[in-house]
């Protein structure tokens, strides 16, 4: 028999108390692993979403830069327009590898939802847009033909809302022309899901915006200095240059603030675990006051008692930590669904990523925190004098 066996059997003495302590540590670990996984998953998914937009730079009409960012991420209203000639001029510059012009139009539909809603139309150039948005996959059909005038593609949610299938006909507001649905996109989890795509020229005509555009998405040649190119765009009148790197940095700095809050919650979970362990082990030490004294009378040194109590604490934390990790892993789908429900904007991809680092880090951290919580009870136990325990008999 060794000290480890003695410690582990000591934990069975008050089974219910041990269970609740382990349960508390498990909950703390669950919270910790989920929050760390969310930190990683959200940041990675957001980064992937922004990178996956396919544009390095977006040129829009002058306005609030945050509005411009919103325009790209969620679709916008109250849109401003740029002259088409200016846009075509930028698109044809030698530094540009690919460019695609877009015209966005938002129309309030009183019949949409319970209180009405905005339907967003995006006029795109079928020659350039699909190649810059390669992640857009089709559930049914395909993009409209290069010279199409009366064909549309629906985002996943737009198709569900309009209850349309490929081959159906639709009449757009302000137009008497029937448009044929030629494609329905697969779900992306982004603003693309709610969009109705039309050929660019048709959009300009239907919404009476001939010669005007909302955005130009640009991808530069690898050798081009992006900063210098952006500087040259700033010289153009009444345009706004939005660098995706800037957008990413801005969003990531907002996410960093949220991360600080998340880490504070994780820290509180740590403290709860630590004080839970401290309380349990201290109670157990006080209950065994005489017994610990007797162990010392039969030859246990203070360091033996210290070790015995710390092993008990470590076992509690390790078992609770392991269960917490398993629960966090098993319920990550449920946690993700809950987070998606509460978050106003969630990027595509997995929101909770629990990798080996998070598992190992959480396990070691929770065990260490438990150990810290166990130091005081262990110290108290190691300083029990056998004589005092015999006197208390």
């Amino acid at each position: 028999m060794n000290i480890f066996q003695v410690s582990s059997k000591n934990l069975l003495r008050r089974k219910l108390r041990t269970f609740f302590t382990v349960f508390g540590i498990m909950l703390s670990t669950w919270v910790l692993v989920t929050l760390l996984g969310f930190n990683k998953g959200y940041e990675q998914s957001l980064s992937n979403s922004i990178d996956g937009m396919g544009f390095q730079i977006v040129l829009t009409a002058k306005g609030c830069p945050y509005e411009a960012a919103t325009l790209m991420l969620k679709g916008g209203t109250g849109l401003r327009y740029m002259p088409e000639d200016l846009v075509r001029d930028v698109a044809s510059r030698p530094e540009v590898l690919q460019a695609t012009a877009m015209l966005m139009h938002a129309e309030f539909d009183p019949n949409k939802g319970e209180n009405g809603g905005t339907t967003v139309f995006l006029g795109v150039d079928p020659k350039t847009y699909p190649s810059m948005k390669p992640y857009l996959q089709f559930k049914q059909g395909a993009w409209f033909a290069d010279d199409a005038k009366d064909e549309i593609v629906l985002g996943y949610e737009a198709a569900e809302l309009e209850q349309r299938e490929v081959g159906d006909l639709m009449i757009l507001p302000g137009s008497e022309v029937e448009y044929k649905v030629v494609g329905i996109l697969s779900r992306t989890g982004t603003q693309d899901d709610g969009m109705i795509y039309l050929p660019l020229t048709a959009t300009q005509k239907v919404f009476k915006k001939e010669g005007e555009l909302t955005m130009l998405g640009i991808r530069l040649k690898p050798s081009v200095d992006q900063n210098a190119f952006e500087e040259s765009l700033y010289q153009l009148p009444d345009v706004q240059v939005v660098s995706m790197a800037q957008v990413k940095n801005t969003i990531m700095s907002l996410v960093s603030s949220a991360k600080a809050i998340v880490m504070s919650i994780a820290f509180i979970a740590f403290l709860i675990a630590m004080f839970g362990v401290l309380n349990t082990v201290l109670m157990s030490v006080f209950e065994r006051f005489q017994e610990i004294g007797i162990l010392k009378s039969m030859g246990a040194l203070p360091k033996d008692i210290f070790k015995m109590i710390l092993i008990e604490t470590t076992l509690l934390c390790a078992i609770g930590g392991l269960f917490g990790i398993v629960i966090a892993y098993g319920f990550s789908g449920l946690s993700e669904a809950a987070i998606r429900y509460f978050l106003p904007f969630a990027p595509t991809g997995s929101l909770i990523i629990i990798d080996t680092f998070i598992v190992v880090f959480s396990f070691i951290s929770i065990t260490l925190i438990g150990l810290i919580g166990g130091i005081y009870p262990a110290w108290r136990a190691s300083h029990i004098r056998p004589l005092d325990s015999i006197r208390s008999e």
Partner: protein
Amino acid sequence: MNRFIEAHDLTKTYSRGAEQITALNNVSFAVDKGDIVSVVGASGSGKTTLVNVLGCLDNPSSGTLMINHKVIFGEGKLLSEPALTKIRRATFGYVFQKFFLIPTLSVKENILLPSVFQPDHTPDDESLYQLMDMLGIARRENHLPSQLSGGEMQRVAIARALIHKPEVLIADEPTGNLDSKRSNEIKDLLLRLNQENGITVIIVTHNPDIAKIGNKTLELVDGKLMG
């Protein structure tokens, strides 16, 4: 005569608030190897204080204590808790009125508990079973303390005190929690341990029947040794 313990003018005082209590007052005596010493006296007479000092659980305030011809206390010598522990490990086994068995450990595991802290003194199986046989608890080796009678629990406590083969067994009111039948069993057992194994026994008791087994009796009155 083989002197094993020699006490000269042992005095133990302690404070209780403003009051100074003299628990032992210039107590001198000697214990030889193989003795059974009964320590008797009224409650509060200093019996337990005396065996605590003899058993190196406590330092005396003054006087000299020699164990096996070595000065443990006295001549300006006071030992730290770890140093006292080392002497206790090598020399003494303790049995108390309460059994203090670990409820989640089996009989065998409880008996082996001291060897957890003294791995060098882990007994071989033969000596372990021999001891359990002698104490009549071999068939109970896998039982938990809650499955034992009071007498059996005290036998397990005695086995635990003897597992590292101490030279002296200190038993402080070992029959205090037992009925007369179980008390007699424990008395006979202590006698056998002394006679068959040559273990020196120091027994604190209120029970005159148990006290009778001693070949020496130390009677304390208000911390002083009578006779």
